[in-house]
């Protein structure tokens, strides 16, 4: 009977090294998904705050001029917030694109190195 010596730790290390680029890509993707989720959560919170502030301003019921002024102020604040969120989204997208580009370059370099070594 043949003697099979199976080492689980060696197998796991081999598996890790083989799938290292894939794992790193998954980790980067997870980071990006987490960032975008947090961003969406923040935008939803902004909308929630805006709605609550609008309802409060409508229920204050002073003169129509004051009501219009408060609505204008709220709209201006929300517009500025949304502008900031748009800038944040652009930054997030740029960072995600650059990180994936860097990951792709590193992976390609590693594969080329491995091919060169094997050749």
């Amino acid at each position: 009977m043949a003697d099979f010596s199976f080492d689980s730790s060696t197998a796991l290390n081999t598996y890790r090294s083989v799938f290292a680029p894939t794992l790193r890509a998954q980790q980067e993707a997870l980071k990006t998904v987490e960032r975008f989720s947090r961003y969406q959560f923040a935008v939803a919170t902004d909308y929630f705050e805006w709605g609550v502030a609008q309802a409060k301003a409508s229920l204050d019921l002073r003169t129509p001029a004051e009501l219009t002024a408060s609505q204008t102020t709220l709209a201006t604040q929300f517009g500025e917030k949304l502008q900031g969120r748009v800038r944040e989204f652009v930054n997030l997208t740029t960072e995600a694109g650059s990180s994936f580009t860097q990951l792709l370059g590193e992976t390609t370099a590693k594969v080329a190195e491995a091919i060169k070594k094997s050749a």
Partner: protein
Amino acid sequence: MASSVKAGGQAPNGRRGPKTGTNVAARTIPAQPEPEAPAVVDAPAVVEASAPVDTPARVDTPAPVDAAAPVDTPARVDTPALVDTPARIRSGAGTPHLNFNPRAAFDAYRGALAPTLRAQREALKAIECFGRYQYSVAGDYLEWGAAQAKANLKLGTPAELTASQAALATQFGAKIQGRVREFVNLASETRASFNQLLGEMTAGLAETIKQSVNKS
């Protein structure tokens, strides 16, 4: 004498007089009133009232418009003081003077609907609290999911993976327990505030009814 009468062709009185049917003057010129008729026409309505009723000429004559006519004449019913002429409408003399103050009306509306407004404010506060609570719970779930995904992608030993999963589950359980306590507190506060509001509204209504009863 008799011949002269014959030669002259003098017509007898009763038979050859002017015929009303063939006379042109009688057909075109209207009949003149009798000598006493003008006196009746120019007479005021008061005089007419004392006139005999059986005279047809006097009955058909319209009553003259006179400033000194009795009260029951139509000329006295439509007095100029009550008629809105365009000049009077333009000057605004005939329109009633309405003293409408929008601020006073707005204040009255505010005073009448004050309990409803306060109830709406309390409801808005409660909705805001529950909305923030739900956002917090959603944030907790987001954190837990991200931490689980990170722990799965670290790829340590199975024992480390199990330990990290157990630690994450414990943390999440503690967080959820805290959220449940927070929810119970929120519900209790909301109920207490609404009960207080209802009591104040009932007391205010009873006070108003008592005051109106005392006034009447």
